């Protein structure tokens, strides 16, 4: 285990003994990652923050079932995945996000594009945001299990073993899901890559 995961385990055990401060420390340590994880599914900051809070309330309620032998983040992402999938399966979510070309529902979210843009030109910025929307659409178009496996491995940076634990499946199945996800994405992304300046 890494030092970070040791710290998570210590905090979780402290919470189980009654320390609320330890639990809120866990929230502080993982809120950013879980909010962004939820954002991959719902693409709405307010909803992502609500889901992240729901995840931690479930962690709070289920603390009695936490086993220190397991990595806390794996357990956390399992809960987060269930919460996010429940949300995207709701009819109201599907009705709102049926169109792959749907604009973001949160104009105030101000998504931060990670790569440094050498060209601050407004037109180039607009083109980049269009690119992000197309990337988002390509990801949303994947079947659910492929999307989950891909996001856990590539965005949340969980290993294949950890993804398998989260999804309650085998490592071999995870590799297959990611391979198929990449095949599905590659054909859509190849033309878009040329558009990046």
């Amino acid at each position, binding site marked *: 285990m890494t030092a970070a995961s040791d710290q998570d385990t210590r905090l979780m055990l402290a*919470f*189980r*003994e*009654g320390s609320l401060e330890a*639990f*809120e420390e866990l*929230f*502080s340590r993982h*809120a*950013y990652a879980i*909010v*962004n994880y939820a*954002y*991959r599914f719902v693409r709405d*900051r307010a909803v*992502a*923050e609500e889901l*992240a*809070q729901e995840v*931690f*309330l479930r962690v*709070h*309620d289920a*603390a*009695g*079932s936490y086993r220190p032998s397991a990595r806390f983040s794996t357990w956390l992402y399992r809960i987060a995945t269930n919460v996010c999938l429940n949300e995207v399966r709701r009819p109201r979510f599907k009705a709102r996000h049926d169109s792959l070309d749907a604009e973001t529902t949160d104009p105030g979210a*101000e*998504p*931060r*594009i*990670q*790569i*440094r843009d*050498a060209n601050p030109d407004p037109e180039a910025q607009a083109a980049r945001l269009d*690119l*992000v929307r197309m*990337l*988002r659409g390509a*990801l949303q178009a994947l079947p659910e299990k492929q999307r989950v496996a*891909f996001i856990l*491995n*590539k*965005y949340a*940076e969980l*290993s*294949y073993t950890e993804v398998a634990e989260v999804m309650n499946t085998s490592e071999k199945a995870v*590799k297959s899901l*990611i391979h198929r*996800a*990449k*095949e599905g*994405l*590659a*054909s859509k*992304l*190849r033309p878009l*890559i*040329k558009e*990046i*300046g």
Partner: protein
Amino acid sequence: MDCTTARKSLTALEAGDLTGEDARRLRLHLAACKACRFGMDDGAIPELLPALDECIEPSADLGARFHERLMRHRAGRADSGVSAVPRLEGLRRWIMARRLSLAALTAGVVICAIIAGTYLRRGSQGEAIPAEQAIAENLPLLEDLQVISHLELLEEFEDIEKLSPESSLVH
């Protein structure tokens, strides 16, 4: 990261052998470097997605909002009798899930104790007290534990009832 290192590391990234900060730096380089990007195989292109996709900053007041919601949540659980200490909560759930089994086990222990007591106790003259007499003496206890309906002695219940002046079932 330079382009030579990036191209050498790409195979490891695709195989899932490059993780954490190294993977992040490689993705950022590939997303920013046209030359490296155009040389990528189709299968490797999805590796760029996390570097190209958007990240959001959670609201500044998220921590405070969560704290408020957590306090309400805990207050709600306290009102409904759920333990605030997770370990006790786990024990409570274990007991509630098995309450019928535990009740049956308790009833079995009581019956065994009564039967054992029947054969261990002696009257003033040293003779054994009949089983029916022992059960009649303990009838109120057995009624409280709702054991009566499970007893095979039910067919002899009228005789037992007559022996016990304390039973509420005596008409």
